[in-house]
């Protein structure tokens, strides 16, 4: 079953009473998110990621296209009951403690008082805020607020979790912990929709990703599909190559001179790798290292965003 399904979803924000200005935040975005997966929506700042999620939760109304959440058209109150949401830059009323916050939002989710209390304590432990239960939120760091936000999003045992830049402002260890939490949730059968501009983060945990730029979807697919699945071998040698030697090795390879003393040669296939090594050895050149390198999500992301056309 599709958890989220959008068809040519578009949004143009209009603002100003006298001088109307309009911003196109999303254009014809068609995405399907499947049950049980971690789906990463990637894009630079201002790409329209937040807008996309807000439309799904009917915080923002789309101007065109259609969107379904858990099999019902967006705006359906009941389908929201099965969603968890960690907004970008969320805040909580500062006069509340962590526990009070969860109790209140638990009640807004329809939990009974007794159940809400147990659930809240359990979740504070889950996100590592147990010692902070009775502290005022005012005193919380950004990272702690993100954890509290995650606990809040989990109050109603959601089927799908929308996380908008969840590791924003969290330190590296905290990020790792949060990623582990996401994977645990995924194991428990929660589908996760993750918005982020941090590619490496998304790359580590997502099953499928979409790349969004200036409101347009550039690519949707599994990590390997989006990365392009290419591998390269990099050979690092001591010294420089002469123009004749470069010509002999072939135009297919790339030559990078890092400084006066080392050169890196990138070759694509295994056959080429072996032929190149034979040549280098026959010239008596010292090979310092040989490494296999997958092209990263970042490579294809930058390629797509700088010169990509929409899919």
């Amino acid at each position, binding site marked *: 079953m599709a958890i989220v399904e959008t068809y040519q979803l578009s949004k143009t924000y209009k603002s100003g009473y006298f001088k109307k200005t309009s911003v196109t935040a999303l254009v014809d975005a068609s995405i399907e998110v499947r049950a049980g997966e971690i789906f990463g929506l990637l894009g630079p700042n201002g790409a329209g990621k937040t807008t996309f999620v*807000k439309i799904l939760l009917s*915080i923002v109304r789309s101007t065109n296209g259609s969107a379904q959440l858990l099999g019902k058209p967006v705006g359906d109150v009941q389908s929201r009951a099965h969603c968890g949401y960690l*907004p970008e830059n969320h805040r*909580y009323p500062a006069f509340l403690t962590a526990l009070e916050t969860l109790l209140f939002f638990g009640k*807004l989710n329809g939990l009974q008082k007794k159940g809400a209390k147990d659930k809240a304590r359990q979740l504070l432990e889950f996100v590592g805020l147990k010692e902070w239960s009775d502290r005022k939120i005012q005193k919380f760091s950004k990272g702690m607020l993100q954890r509290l936000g995650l606990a809040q999003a989990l109050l109603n045992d959601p089927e799908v979790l929308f996380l908008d830049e969840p590791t924003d402002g969290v330190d590296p260890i905290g990020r790792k912990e949060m990623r582990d939490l996401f994977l645990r949730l995924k194991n428990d059968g929660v589908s996760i929709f993750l918005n982020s501009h941090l590619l490496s983060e998304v790359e580590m945990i997502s099953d499928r990703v979409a790349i969004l730029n200036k409101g347009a979807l550039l690519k949707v697919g599994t990590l390997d599909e989006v990365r392009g699945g290419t591998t390269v071998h990099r050979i690092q040698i001591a010294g420089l190559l002469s123009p004749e030697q470069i010509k002999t090795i072939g135009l297919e390879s790339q030559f990078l001179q890092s400084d006066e003393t080392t050169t890196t040669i990138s070759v694509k296939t295994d056959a080429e790798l072996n032929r190149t090594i034979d040549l280098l050895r026959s010239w008596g050149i010292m090979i310092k290292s040989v490494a296999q390198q997958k092209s990263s999500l970042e490579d294809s992301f930058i390629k797509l965003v700088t010169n990509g056309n929409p899919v």
Partner: protein
Amino acid sequence: MKMLAMVRFTLFEAVRRGTLLFYFAFGTIIIAVFAIWLRKSPEDPSMIMLFGATVPGNINGLSSADFFLVMLFRQSTFWIIILGTFGAAGLMTSFLEKGIVELYLSKPFARWELFASRALGASAGVAANLMYCIVGLWLVFGLKLGVWHFGFLAAGLLVSYAFVCYFSIVSFVAIWSRNAILSIVFGLFFSFISIGLESREKGLYRLWDNTIYHRFLDGFYYLTPQLDGMLSNASRLIGQIPFSQEPAAFNPAPYFYSLGTAALFYCLSVYYFSSRDF
């Protein structure tokens, strides 16, 4: 259930922000002052004294106690409404703050439910404080002076009703501008206008002798909650206002008109709130 949680949270917010406590303390001081310094006159038990001075009686058939209550009521209710606005307007904008409103809107309830529970919570806070003062004073009069004036209690309920109607304007500006200060300023402006509109034949009409202008004032009068009309009629449940040209009889019309116009403004707020992006 979820709406109730939001209503209760709104009140809780007023407590935590200190506004409700401030009003509660303020009301308690007023009740205490009257409880200590109001007494029966030793010479004439039908007369009452405050701070040692005798309150006049037998004016337009009003007893000394009635005279005191109706004057107090007439002089203070307008300011109580203003004071209530100061406390309640902030509750209509705090839930719209960026980063908080997204959370509320993602919860499983409709936007009108969210708006209604905020407005209800904010009004309930003001009404509770007002009724606390009214009942407190009523008890002081009953227990200390032996005057059990049920019209005074009823008038207090009507002031709460008037506040709920009047608050539709403040909420509308709050939802529209997301700015508590602006909604308070607008509310103040409107409440003064409403006094002028109530007696427009004697004042505003004379500024310009033009039929279109007069009908415009009439239209404005009937399209907005008639705050001053509701407050002055509430006081008539206690007794006729002394030294005044105002009619003596209680007129329920402003309450009906205002219910309609308040409903209109609340619906406009819901419509605007529901159609907007956050």
